[in-house]
């Protein structure tokens, strides 16, 4: 009896073991995520975490020379003379180039060619390049650059954008870069409640983790190859070729190891001297910027002054918004015109406003240059209109979330530009989600938890002086280039021996385009192994990595190309079976007919075949804003709502963000893990803009261009980020229905934090970043 029992038991055990063992490999296989909607690991994750990812600063070539750039120590000065003799005579120096050595166009610019390659008559900002040196050692190059004698006549810098209108022209193009007067509705309309506010937004720096670096290698045909971490290689190639006086096909930009980009990367002031020096010396030339040069060289977020007047009725519904927006472009135009368009168009936020009158200006000053940083324009106005919403709520005694809820925009509503919102606009749902999400516990309700007080661990914070505040921000951005930009991208998909390759000049800046391209091809063709070719300008253009473009246009192009390959693959089988290719489907690595009668593995079908297809994706056209700021200027919009919970030490004014609850309109989730990471990154950048990040200048000179003086959020500053809702309403015009996810949290976070600090302190909080002196309150208020 017992023996039999034992035998049975053994059998059962064996079976269990066998069952557990058998599905093992299969489960493991299923666990490798693939295709759209799966958390596919980013292509470069391993290499970046293990330290083997080749960044641009790691480039090397036999016999390379080192470059250094001489930059202006003044914000505004006339150059009387430049003497390079001493520098050129230093041992080890191979070439010195100045304005006089630029063979082609002497000005450049990604949007408007208004920026000199090297300053020659006037310097217009601190850090403007004046000359460059190539030498056989980086120290020699730097010493030689310092040995260039430049005689300046100092000019008064124009640093207050309000003074720019009346100041002497800083540039032949004048000081006013763009003025948009937006007129929408009845100027005489008034509301029962009128609130006014003046808001100031500081200068956020994109502060990429890796500073600018590159290598230029001269070619036997008289051209030059530029290895840089460019985010817009074809534009960079074109402007480099123009400055070098070469045909565009003689210059090749090879994109190498982008160390993260939330703005335009690789300041042309690096690439152009590099290329010139390589052409001049006939040797490869490398340049790796110091952190200080990086801060001085690249463009920043536009510092903005905003004056608002909101009219609302007694129920808190908006009647009219009047606003004046003044953006500081620094000395050169760059992306300023586009940033202003976004600021003016979104000046009222994702709210229904029957009457709007917004005047926007962007002007030249001698401050550090401004340009594209994600969420530009939209971020500055969001902080201001949300401040106004808080003021209306306070004036009417209505809860801030409720007041916003009464005004939210929805699909079918009009923007103040007259454009109808045709894409999903689930603003009410987003706001409701964050409002209804459970609030984090107060320290007194959860005494066993460890509490981080404002001021940090072991800091000066004292629980008795800490007040908690809850605030809301709702923000919006546009996707893709606006106002008639031709947003086209081209991609090629090839399949050889069952391995697919994507060739597309869309730069993976960390946004995960390479991973997305793999997912798309896996989804459409059912192949596992997909590689993404390195990007260079021999490939057809894909445009800049900005405004969530690549997910949309480049992703769309990859999908189309992959579908064309799919047709090529399935056509012969469909023909043989006498059915159309639509009746065949590819799933789990197998091709099956609709009735299941035909089944074949993808690998088998692809054996011995080489399939290629190239396709383009071009979204529907947009139009420029007209003289009244009206027009269908945007391809698509994305929205986000954030509830911020902050603790403020009201005696010291130190702020700690406890939690940010985020609800975002994402269209469709293509890769859950990556999406979360993008939202968290955007929110954290927004925390920096709200509390610490401001590149300070005094009389146009940048103070402390280093990471001690410019305080980025650390792990202790980053709050708990709860993504409480991702609304998936597919945008029917977007490929996959997905919306850009990175920029809108950056736009919304500072507004939400400012709102929460207002709630905690009762102070107006009308300046970003929020300074401790603005968050000090008396304990009785």
């Amino acid at each position, binding site marked *: 009896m017992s023996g039999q029992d034992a035998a049975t038991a053994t059998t059962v055990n064996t079976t269990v073991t066998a069952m557990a063992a058998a599905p093992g490999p299969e489960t493991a296989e299923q666990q490798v995520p693939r295709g759209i909607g799966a958390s596919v690991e980013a292509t470069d994750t391993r290499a970046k975490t293990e330290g083997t990812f080749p960044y641009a600063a790691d480039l090397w070539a036999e016999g390379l020379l080192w470059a250094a750039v001489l930059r202006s120590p003044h914000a505004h000065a006339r150059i009387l003379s430049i003497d390079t003799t001493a520098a050129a005579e230093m041992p080890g120096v191979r070439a010195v180039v100045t304005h006089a050595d630029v063979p082609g166009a002497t000005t450049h610019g990604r949007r408007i060619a208004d920026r000199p390659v090297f300053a020659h008559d006037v310097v217009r900002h601190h850090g403007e390049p004046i000359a460059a040196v190539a030498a056989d050692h980086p120290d020699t190059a730097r010493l030689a650059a310092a040995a260039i004698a430049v005689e300046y006549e100092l000019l008064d810098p124009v640093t207050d954008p309000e003074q720019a209108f009346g100041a002497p022209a800083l540039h032949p193009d004048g000081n006013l870069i763009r003025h948009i007067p937006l007129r929408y509705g009845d100027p005489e309309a008034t509301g029962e409640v009128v609130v006014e506010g003046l808001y100031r937004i500081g200068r956020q720096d994109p502060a990429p983790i890796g500073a600018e670096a590159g290598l230029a290698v001269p070619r036997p045909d008289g051209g030059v190859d530029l290895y840089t971490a460019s985010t817009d290689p074809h534009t960079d190639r074109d402007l480099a070729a123009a400055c070098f006086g070469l045909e565009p096909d003689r210059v090749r930009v090879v994109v190498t190891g982008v160390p993260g980009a939330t703005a335009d990367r690789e300041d042309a002031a690096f690439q152009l001297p590099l290329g010139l020096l390589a052409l001049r010396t006939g040797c490869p030339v490398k340049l790796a910027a110091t952190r200080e040069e990086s801060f001085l060289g690249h463009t920043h977020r536009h510092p903005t002054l905003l004056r608002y007047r909101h009219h609302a009725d007694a129920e808190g519904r908006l009647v009219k918004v009047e606003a004046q927006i003044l953006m500081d472009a620094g000395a050169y135009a760059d992306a300023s015109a586009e940033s202003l368009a976004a600021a003016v168009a979104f000046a009222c936020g994702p709210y229904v406003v029957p009457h709007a009158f917004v005047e926007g200006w962007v002007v030249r000053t001698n401050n550090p240059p401004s340009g594209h940083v994600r969420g530009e324009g939209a971020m500055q106005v969001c902080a201001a209109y949300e401040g106004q919403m808080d003021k209306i709520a306070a004036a009417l005694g209505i809860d801030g979330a409720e007041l916003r809820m009464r005004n939210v925009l929805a699909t079918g509503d009009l923007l103040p530009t007259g454009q109808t919102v045709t894409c999903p606009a689930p603003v009410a749902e987003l706001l409701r989600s964050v409002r209804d999400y459970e609030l984090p516990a107060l320290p007194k309700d959860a005494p066993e938890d460890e509490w981080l007080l404002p001021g940090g661990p*072991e800091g*000066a914070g004292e629980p008795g*002086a800490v007040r908690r505040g809850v605030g809301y921000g709702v923000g919006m951005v546009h996707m893709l280039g606006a106002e008639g930009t031709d947003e086209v991208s081209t991609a090629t998909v090839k399949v050889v021996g069952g391995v697919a390759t994507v060739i597309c000049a869309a730069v993976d800046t960390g946004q995960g385009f390479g991973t997305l391209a793999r997912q798309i091809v896996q989804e459409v063709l059912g192949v596992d192994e997909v590689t993404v070719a390195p990007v260079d300008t021999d490939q057809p253009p894909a445009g800049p990595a900005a405004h969530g473009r690549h997910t949309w246009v480049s992703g769309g192009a990859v999908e189309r190309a992959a579908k064309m390959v799919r047709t090529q693959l399935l056509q012969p089988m469909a023909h043989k079976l006498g059915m159309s290719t639509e009746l065949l489907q590819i799933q789990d690595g197998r091709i099956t007919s609709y009735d299941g009668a035909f089944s074949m593995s993808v690998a088998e079908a692809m054996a011995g075949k080489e399939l290629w297809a190239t396709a383009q994706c071009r979204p529907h056209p947009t139009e420029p804003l007209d003289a009244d700021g009206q027009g269908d200027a945007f391809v698509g919009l994305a929205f986000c709502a954030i509830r911020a919970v902050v603790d403020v030490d009201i005696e010291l004014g130190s702020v700690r963000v406890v939690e940010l609850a985020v609800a975002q309109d994402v269209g469709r989730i293509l890769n859950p893990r990556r999406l979360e990471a993008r939202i968290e990154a955007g929110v954290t950048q927004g925390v920096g803009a709200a509390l610490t990040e401001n590149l300070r200048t005094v009389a146009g000179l940048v103070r402390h261009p280093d990471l001690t003086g410019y*305080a980025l959020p650390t792990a202790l500053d980053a709050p708990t980020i709860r993504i409480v809702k991702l609304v998936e309403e597919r945008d029917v015009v977007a490929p996959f229905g997905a919306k850009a996810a990175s920029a809108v949290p950056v736009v919304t976070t500072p507004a939400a934090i400012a709102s929460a600090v207002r709630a905690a302190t009762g102070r107006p909080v009308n300046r970003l970043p929020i300074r*401790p*002196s603005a968050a000090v309150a008396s304990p009785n208020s």
Partner: protein
Amino acid sequence: MTLPASLDEAVAALTAMPAAVPVAGGTDLMAAVNAGQLRPAALVGLGRINEIRGWQYQDGHALLGAGLTHARMGRPDFAALIPALAAAARAAGPPQIRNAGTLGGNIATAAPTGDALPVLAALEAVLVIIGPGGQREIPVSHLLAGREMLRPGELIGFVRVPLLHAPQVFLKATGRTGPGRAVASVGLVLDPARRGVRCAIGAVAPMPLRPLEAEQWVASLIDWDGGRSLAPEALEAFGEYVAAACVPDQGEPVAPGVLHLRRTVAVLARRALGRALSS
């Protein structure tokens, strides 16, 4: 770059190369070199000198090696001896900086925001300077104020700090939750044996400031033999007293920045004294 193994060797190396600059953790010096502000002809590395990497006891005092890192000073055994210096060391930047930066380097750099400095000033620490002519002692405040300077070939060898066996507090206000430069800081120590309160404010001036009158005033209010407690109004008044002494008016109207700084100093001083008396 030479790497002497003892203080005597280091002094000899510095005497032999008068242009050489001593370097310990390098957290300030090398940043200046990288920024092109300094180009030392030679460096004398102090990292291998074991005699200055620890501490010893000397009749009621601790003789701290100048090569003690912030990380080492932040540990509990050190915190039991000189709590305020340990707290300042833990607040002095991110772990990478604390692992490299040293006590002596903090004094030699004499940055207004140096976190150890207000604590050393409050403790009335004495520097033991080693030089070609032997050793001499100078109060830390004399060096920081520039009343006495290091002579050629001299090094900060040790820092003598009294062991007070009483509560001490270091607090600093920064612009963020993560490690940051002090906007203002305070080191405050109780000295029951001498019935004194000693306090120094950092970061608001080129060197730590001692509000001597405020110290004497508040020490006279404390019942040193009893519970050592003070009424909230007295703490408040002490804070105001310290702030008025350390952040002077710069003409009328008082700039908003000055007002905020004064308020911050008042809050820090009040909280520091409150914590010292209640612990």
